[in-house]
């Protein structure tokens, strides 16, 4: 893994439980660790993505009081799903990144909901509006905006369309 992704992971570990819960007045919250799983899987493919999702999911479970396994389940699924599309789309477009991050949040939160609620489908629409939609919007905004800000400040272009993050002068 290259330094930019490591920096992203460290930021996610530092700020997901400390700063991010305070930035979610409408419900939901930015899922930084999930974003890192998405970017990693996107660059490395399905198998590394699934295993990375499993490891980061375990970390996320340990940072919470919930039973371990719930986040591992969701993030492994996201790692596999995003890893499977890694060669088929152009990853550097911000719009594509927003869309994939939002879909990843939808998949993750839906998996967590279905396992956590023992398949209570009747409650899913309310859950979608209250939890999934705000989380998807907030998550889709945070990392692409951070990357865009970094590009503006340093004058360098960050590219994900490779097996590693490429920084072009």
């Amino acid at each position, binding site marked *: 893994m290259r330094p930019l992704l490591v920096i992203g992971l460290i930021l996610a570990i530092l700020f997901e439980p400390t700063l991010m819960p305070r930035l979610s007045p409408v419900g939901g919250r930015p899922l930084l660790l999930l974003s890192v799983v998405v970017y990693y899987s996107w660059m490395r493919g399905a198998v590394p993505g699934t295993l990375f999702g499993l490891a980061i999911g375990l970390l996320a479970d340990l940072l919470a009081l919930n*039973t371990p396994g719930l986040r591992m389940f969701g993030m492994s699924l996201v790692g596999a799903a995003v890893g499977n599309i890694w060669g088929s789309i152009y990853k550097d477009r911000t719009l594509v990144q927003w869309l994939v991050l939002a879909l990843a949040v939808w998949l993750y939160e839906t998996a967590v909901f279905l396992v956590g609620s023992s398949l209570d489908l009747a409650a899913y629409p309310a859950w979608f509006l209250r939890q999934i939609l705000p989380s998807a919007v907030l998550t889709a905004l945070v990392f692409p905006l951070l990357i865009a800000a970094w590009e503006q400040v340093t004058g360098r272009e960050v590219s994900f369309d490779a097996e590693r993050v490429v920084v072009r002068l």
Partner: protein
Amino acid sequence: MWSPVELLTWLLGLIERHRNAAVLAFALVLSLWLFNAGQAVGPPLRRLADMALGPVHTLTSNTLALLNIWVWKENSDLQEKLLNERMDRLALDEARLEIARLRLLLGFRAPAGFRTIPCMVVAMDPEPFGASITINRGTSAGLVGDEAVVSVDGLVGRIVEIYSGRARVRLVTHYESPVAVRLQRNRVLGVVEWDPITARLHMRNVPATEDVAEGDSLISSGMGQQYPEGLYVGQVEAVQLDPMGLVQDIVVRPGARFNRLEELFVVRPLVP
């Protein structure tokens, strides 16, 4: 009939042909196994995670608190609130002295009261299926591990895991965190529980004959030994009868603002 070696060879070939699916299946099965066995393996794993990341989160949270630009406005509001509280306190002191005299006359034993230990939130997990926070006080501050935690606005939760310098608090907005309560106005008893699907606190199974009104205050009853008696929990937001008309489903608005938790207090009952 296949021999074990043939079966193993076939299985390895199958995994090799469907590597992505095999890895995903392994990850999902492991996750679900942990989900089932979590009550046993969760606490020791979390203790390890706290040792590794707890100090880092404490440092990050303290730094963010220093940068909090809203703290100045909050400080001004608190000054005003403090002045009002002092004036109320004078009136309450008078009433307390009168009650003490009357208790003495009637031979009643006075409740012992509480001691509060201030603490700060260093990490939050607002997961709707099980909200929890980490505070910066632990066994080194004299805590034992099952104390209630409150904010100035009301009951927040209860310590469920404790380490040397930190403790994990399960919020009342956790689906496994029921609170035994009573209505302050007419002493009706009940249990308040978080419903993760509706994202509301509910006081359920109160008989339809009981008088419950919107705006009634709820305090902890001390029943069940989970929380001490007399802590403010919230107030009644809505009351409706169940379809059979036998019991009431009461929606409770919590006093504590769970998306703005920062400075909290651990409550330790004093021994009379």
